[in-house]
C-alpha cells in the first residue's frame, strides 16, 4: 500500500547537500520530507577524500566556499558530534615554473575574494614539509583549509534534520516526480509525497530527476580513485595537492595516509563504482614522487565514488528553468564536500525568500542552453 505524505518541501537525495538543506529548511520552520535511495551520506558525500579546501577553486565558487568555511568552524557544535574537521592547512605544490606562475596568479585573484594564500619558494616549502620529494619548485599554502571525516558529516546532518523534525526516509528510491497544478507529486515504490517545493539534490542521479521536468543537463560521472595506507607515524601535517590535480595526499589523525589520483570505474545508472588497478598503481607512483617516505608502506584499501560532473566543472545551484518551485543543487564535479553546508543554507534561502544573498548566478542551469562550448575551469580536476 502506498503511504501518502504532505509537506512543504520534498528533497530528493540525502548527500551533504540534501541533508544540510533539510536542516536549514527546518530552521526556517518549513516541513521537510527527504527521500534517499540508500543510506544518508553514503554516496559521494560519504566516500570522498574529505578535503575541506577553498584554494584552487574556480573563482566564482570562492564566495560560496568562503561562506561554507565559516560554517565548518561551528559544525561540531551545530551537529552535536565531532566530525573530525581539522584546519591542517592545504598546500598546493608547483612542479614546474609554469605551475608556480599559475599559483602566483591564482593567489592574486583569490585575494580579491578575501582568501589569503601564502606563496612559498622551494626552500620554504621544504621547511614546511621536510619530507617533500625532488620535484617541488614551490607552493601555495592556505592555512585555513583542512579536512574532515566524510563518513560522519552526511549522517550527522541527517540525524540533526530528524531531531529538528524532518521526515528523513532512507532506502527510498524516487522513481517519479511531476508537477501537478501548483504542487509536486514525488513517488517511491511505497510512498507518494505531495509538496509545494521540490529540491533535486540527487548527486549523479540528478540528471534523471531534471529530465522528468523537461530539463536536459550535460551531467556526467566523475569517479575519483582513492587509496589508504595502514596507520603510520604522523608526518604529513598538511593536506597536499598539486597543480594539475592529478595527485593529492593527506594523513588522518589515526595515522592513515589517504591518497587520491586518477579515475576508478563507475556505473552512473546503478550508482556503483570501484577503483581501477592501473590508476591505483599510477597514483602510488605519483605519490612517491612527492612523498618518497611512503615507499613500502602498506595500502590496506582502495576505493572510488561517483560524483556528478558538469562540463565547466562548477555545479548547478538555483531554480529550474522549466518548472517553478523546483530547486536544483548538483554537479559538484568532485569538490562539493566543502560546499555542502552552505549549499543547504542557499537552498533554504531560495525556498523561503525566493533568493540568496550569495552570488549564485554563475551556477544557473540556463548556462547550458546558451553556450554550446564551455571553457573548462582552470583547476577543474581537483577534489
Amino acid at each position: 500500500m502506498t503511504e501518502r505524505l504532505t509537506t512543504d518541501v520534498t528533497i530528493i537525495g540525502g548527500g551533504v547537500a540534501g541533508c544540510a538543506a533539510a536542516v536549514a529548511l527546518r530552521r526556517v520552520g518549513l516541513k521537510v520530507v527527504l527521500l534517499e535511495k540508500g543510506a544518508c551520506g553514503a554516496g559521494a558525500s560519504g566516500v570522498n577524500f574529505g578535503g575541506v579546501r577553498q584554494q584552487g577553486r574556480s573563482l566564482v565558487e570562492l564566495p560560496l566556499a568562503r561562506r561554507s568555511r565559516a560554517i565548518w568552524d561551528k559544525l561540531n557544535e551545530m551537529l552535536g558530534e565531532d566530525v573530525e574537521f581539522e584546519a591542517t592547512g592545504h598546500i598546493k605544490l608547483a612542479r614546474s615554473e609554469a605551475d608556480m606562475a599559475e599559483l602566483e596568479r591564482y593567489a592574486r585573484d583569490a585575494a580579491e575574494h578575501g582568501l589569503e594564500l601564502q606563496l612559498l619558494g622551494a626552500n620554504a616549502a621544504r621547511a614546511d614539509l621536510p619530507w617533500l620529494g625532488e620535484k617541488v619548485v614551490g607552493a601555495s599554502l592556505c592555512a585555513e583549509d583542512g579536512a574532515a571525516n566524510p563518513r560522519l558529516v552526511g549522517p550527522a546532518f541527517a540525524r540533526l534534520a530528524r531531531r529538528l523534525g524532518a521526515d528523513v526516509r532512507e532506502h527510498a528510491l524516487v522513481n517519479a516526480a511531476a508537477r501537478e497544478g501548483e504542487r509536486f507529486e514525488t513517488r517511491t515504490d511505497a510512498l507518494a509525497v505531495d509538496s509545494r517545493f521540490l529540491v533535486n539534490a540527487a548527486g549523479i542521479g540528478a540528471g534523471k530527476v531534471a529530465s522528468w521536468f523537461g530539463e536536459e543537463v550535460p551531467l556526467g560521472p566523475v569517479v575519483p580513485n582513492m587509496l589508504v595506507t595502514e596507520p603510520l607515524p604522523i608526518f604529513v601535517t598538511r593536506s597536499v595537492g598539486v597543480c594539475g590535480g592529478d595527485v593529492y595526499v593527506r594523513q588522518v589523525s589515526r595515522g592513515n595516509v589517504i591518497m587520491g589520483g586518477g579515475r576508478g570505474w563507475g556505473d552512473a545508472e546503478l550508482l556503483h563504482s570501484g577503483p581501477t588497478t592501473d590508476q591505483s598503481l599510477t597514483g602510488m607512483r605519483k605519490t612517491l614522487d612527492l612523498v618518497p617516505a611512503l615507499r613500502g608502506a602498506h595500502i590496506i584499501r582502495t576505493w572510488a565514488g561517483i560524483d556528478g560532473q558538469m562540463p565547466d566543472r562548477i555545479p548547478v545551484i538555483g531554480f529550474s528553468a522549466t518548472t517553478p518551485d523546483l530547486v536544483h543543487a548538483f554537479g559538484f564535479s568532485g569538490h562539493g564536500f566543502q560546499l555542502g553546508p552552505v549549499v543547504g543554507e542557499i537552498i533554504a534561502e531560495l525556498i523561503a525568500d525566493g533568493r540568496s544573498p550569495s552570488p549564485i548566478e554563475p551556477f544557473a542551469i540556463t548556462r547550458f542552453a546558451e553556450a554550446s562550448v564551455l571553457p573548462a575551469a582552470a583547476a577543474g580536476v581537483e577534489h
Partner: protein
Amino acid sequence: MADPLVVIVGAGPAGVRAAETLALAGLQPILIDEAERPGGQIYRQPPAGAVRPGIYGLEIRKAAGIHGVLAGLGAVDYRPRTLVWNVFQDRLDLLTIEGHGEQRFDRLILATGAMDRALPFPGWTLPGVFTLGGAQIALKSQGVSIGRRVALVGAGPLLPLVAHQYVGAGAQVVAVLDVTPFAPKLLQLLGLAAEPGTLAKGLWYTARNRMQGLAAAYGVRAIRAEGKRQVEALIYKDAMGVEHRIACDAIGASCGLRSETQLADLAGCAFVFDQVGRQWVPQRTGQGRSSVPAVYLAGDGAGIGGADAAELQGRRTALAVLEDLGRPVDLAEAARLDRRLARQARFRKALENAYPFPDHLLDDVADEEMVCRCEGITAGALREAARDKDAAEINRLKAFTRIGMGRCQGRVCGHAAAELLARASGVGIEGVGRLRGQPPVKPIPVLGGVP
C-alpha cells in the same frame, strides 16, 4: 584457437585437485598461491628443506598425495609466493617478490580456503594468545610450539586435533577447554557416522588425548586471559559454574572457521547466508558454479566443508569447467563425486551441530573489551554507534566506527562485530548484512617502478 586459460587461486586440497583434473584433461591451468609450497592449511608444509616427521598424523597419506600431485604433472603452471589481491572482470592483480603484476583468465576457480573464526574475550589481545589454527601453523610450518605451557580453548574439531598434535610434538598442554557442551556431540553421532573414517579419527584423537591425561572440559564459559605484559593464566568457569585458574604462557583460542570470501566478493559473485556458519558465503551450485559465468568456487572458501570435501569439490568443479568449455567429461566420475559430496554434507552438518555456536561468549563481551585491535575499537563503541547513530547495518557501523577498516579489513574482527551489532540492534546476524570488500584483499606495498 588457443587453449582457454583457466586460473586457480589456492593450492590447498581443493585447488590442487582442480588443477590435477584439468591437467589430466589436457589443459594447462595456472595455479596461484601466496604460500611457498602447496598443501593449503591442513597440509601446510614446512619451508623447503625442513623435515617435520609426524606432523600430519593420521592424514600423512592424504598430505603426501596433495604434496606430490604437482610434481607429477608438467602441465600445471604453479606459481607459489604470489598473492592475488584483486579480481576485476577477466583480470587478477598479483603481488610477487618482483612487485605488482597481473594475470588474465578465461575461467577462474577460487579455492581460497578458510581461516580461524576468532571471538573476543577478556585478554584476547595479550601477547601469547593465538588462534588454534595459528598454533597449528606454528607447529607445521615453523616447527615450534606457541609456548611452554599451552592452554587450548574454543570450539570445533580443530580443538581436539591441535591438542593431539601438540602433545604428539612433545609440548606441554595444560588444558583443553571446549566452550560448547558435550551432549550435542553424542546426539550427532549418527550424522557423523556418514563419514565413519573421519568419525573414527575424531574419536581416536579424543581418546588419545584422554590417555595422555588430557581430558577436555566441555561447556566452559566466561574465559579470560590474564597477564601483565603477556599471558600468565587462563581463567574460566566450568559447566557447573566453578571458576578455575590455569597458569600458562600461551593460549590457542578460536571457535570454528570462516570462509575467505573476499576475492569472490570482488569478482561480483552473489552471496547467500549460511545459517550453520553464520556467515555470508558466495552462492555455489553442487558442481561449483558461482553466479558469475566465468567464476567457479571450490573448497572451504565458499562454506566450510573440510579437507576431504575440498578435494572432492576441487575435482567436481574442474569437471564443471571442462563441461562449460565444451570438453568431454566423465559423467560416471561426476556422479560418483556428487554422491560422495552429498555424504560429506551430511557429515558436516552433524559436525557443526556437534559444536553449536558459542553465543554465550558474545553475550558476555563487556563494553571495554577490544573487538578490533588494528583500530582500537571496543565493544562499547560499537554498541554506542548502534544505539545513538542507528547503525543497524554492518557497513554503516564501519563508516561510523572504523570497524573493518584496519589491516585485516574485517577478516578477523568482522564476524564478532556483526554478532555484537545483531545483538545490539535486536536483529538476527543475517539482518546486519555483510562487510563490502574493497581491493586489496590483503595489504600491498606502495611501490614505484610499475608501468
